[in-house]
């Protein structure tokens, strides 16, 4: 397949991905519990349909298996007014909030309340409550995640950049090995540098989209001491160093050889930095605490049908760009041969 084939399939997949990213709504969820100016307790929600079936709503406080109902009033689709009358005896002071509705299913907000006024009896049980089954009647939607909210759409942009970069750097690594194995200056060196350049491009976009995402979820453009941020930045710097090294040598045979050695050395250190290090460090990234990749719980089926095509689409687009650059190089070599 030539560069047009890769690019065409990649762009087709990405069109599908962007269409879904733009049109699929975010699922319902509870944002926060707050006291308003009159001292009343309000529940703020997102994407919910409280007003369409106010009589069938059920609100509970407690923890998973020990719940008690709360009195409430529906203000509008996204807002509830609570009138909590706390029991005299509680099994725990910090309580979760559960909202059940036939349309939105079961929604929960962890540690929504902290009650100081009750007597604490850890073994205490409440009167049994009547709980709906948790399913909802909503169409296709992206999952609601606390803190992340609508920015979950960035998943299709940010994460595939690193997959694509790794794929292209892997090509570069393999071509550098091939070059060192071969005796003469063949195409391997050109492939190694071209794929590294294309990969670097994806790495820079990955950093930019990551920084934007961090700003709106973690509250800052850059977070110190997150192992994956370190790793990503270092990757970009190392491959920039690779290009500087190539620019410093004029003799093409020597340049090919020493940059191939540097490329192998750099790739192995990157594997240490990006694959091994994050397992020993705390990270803000999803799937933290040992696993730098994705946690199975973070990706639900609605994300999968968009995320996997996005990964494949970006990788194919990257391949297309890489092939296009190779073709450009070989054409300019032909022009140089013809010119004198």
């Amino acid at each position, binding site marked *: 397949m030539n560069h047009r084939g890769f690019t065409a399939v990649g762009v087709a997949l990405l069109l599908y991905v962007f269409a879904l990213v733009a049109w699929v709504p975010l699922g319902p969820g509870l944002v926060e519990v707050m006291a308003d100016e009159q001292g009343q307790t309000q529940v703020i929600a997102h994407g919910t349909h409280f007003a369409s079936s106010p009589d069938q709503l059920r609100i509970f406080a407690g923890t998973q298996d020990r719940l008690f109902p709360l009195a409430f009033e529906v203000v509008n689709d996204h807002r509830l007014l609570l009138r909590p009358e706390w029991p005299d005896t509680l099994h725990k002071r910090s309580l979760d909030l559960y909202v059940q509705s036939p349309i939105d299913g079961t929604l929960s907000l962890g540690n929504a309340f902290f009650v100081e006024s009750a007597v604490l009896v850890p073994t205490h049980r409440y009167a049994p409550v009547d709980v709906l089954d948790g399913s909802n009647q909503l169409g296709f939607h992206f999952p609601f995640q606390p803190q992340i909210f609508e920015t979950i759409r960035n998943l299709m942009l940010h994460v595939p950049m690193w997959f694509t970069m790794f794929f292209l750097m892997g090509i570069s690594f393999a071509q550098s090995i091939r070059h060192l194995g071969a005796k003469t200056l063949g195409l391997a060196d050109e492939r190694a540098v071209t794929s590294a350049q294309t990969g670097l491009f994806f790495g820079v976009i990955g950093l930019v989209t990551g920084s934007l995402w961090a700003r709106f979820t973690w509250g800052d453009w850059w977070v110190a001491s997150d192992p994956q941020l370190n790793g990503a930045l270092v990757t970009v710097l190392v491959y920039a160093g690779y290009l500087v090294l190539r620019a*410093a040598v004029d003799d093409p045979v020597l340049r090919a050889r020493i940059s191939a*050695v540097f490329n192998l050395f750099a790739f192995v*250190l990157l594997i240490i930095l990006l694959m091994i290090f994050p397992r020993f460090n705390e990270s803000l990234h999803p799937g933290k605490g040992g696993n730098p990749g994705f946690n199975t719980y973070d990706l639900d089926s609605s994300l999968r049908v968009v995320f996997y095509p996005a990964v494949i689409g970006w990788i194919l687009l990257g391949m297309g760009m890489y092939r296009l650059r190779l073709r450009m190089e070989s054409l300019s070599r032909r022009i140089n041969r013809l010119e004198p």
Partner: protein
Amino acid sequence: MPAPRAFSFQRVAFLVQHTLRVEFRQGHALIGLLLFALSSVYAAFQSVGDDAGAESWNALIWIVLIFTAFNAMARPHADDRPENRQYLTHIVRPLEWMLARTLYHWALMTVLAALVFAAFSLFLGTDHLVGGRGWWLFAGLELAGWALASCLTLLAAIAALAGAGFGLTAVMGLPLIVPIVLVATRFGNDLLSGLSGEETVENLLFLGALAGGITAFGLVLFPYLWRD
């Protein structure tokens, strides 16, 4: 005349001896390194005073170690002149040359890390090194020094072959030493913030593994650079 066929430790020992002899004959190179290390420590001391907190103590000692290492490894050796290299390719195997250079740099780093540690203890005080932590930190400095030496030896060889100097080694090297720096600073931070050496020993082992792994990788890759 082709290069010798079999690997010989005698030639490695000779190369180390030779490098040492050349360095001592030049004199100013080694003295310059010691002076650089001492004056960096003194500059650090002037910037924080003699009651540095644990965090600044830790940050500064690793920064000084990194810059000392760069200064020691990235400078041009007398052996790196093209005509010398041309001659050496006929009388030694590349692996022997790389092993000799790495061993020499390890020895140099052992001395420099000890000097940095001694100067730090003298100027910035040992308030944070109670209960045998000094020995642990010293071990960490030596291991980090060896890991840096191995990494920078290969990069300096690449830069020398490219005909570029210190600048290129820094551009290639500073990102690549990040893994070493991360483990080393975490180790120092653990120690100085009150953990005992046994509690953070996995960082020390990690530093050792990095030093060993990088050395092995450099030895495997270097012969490809040397080929004509």
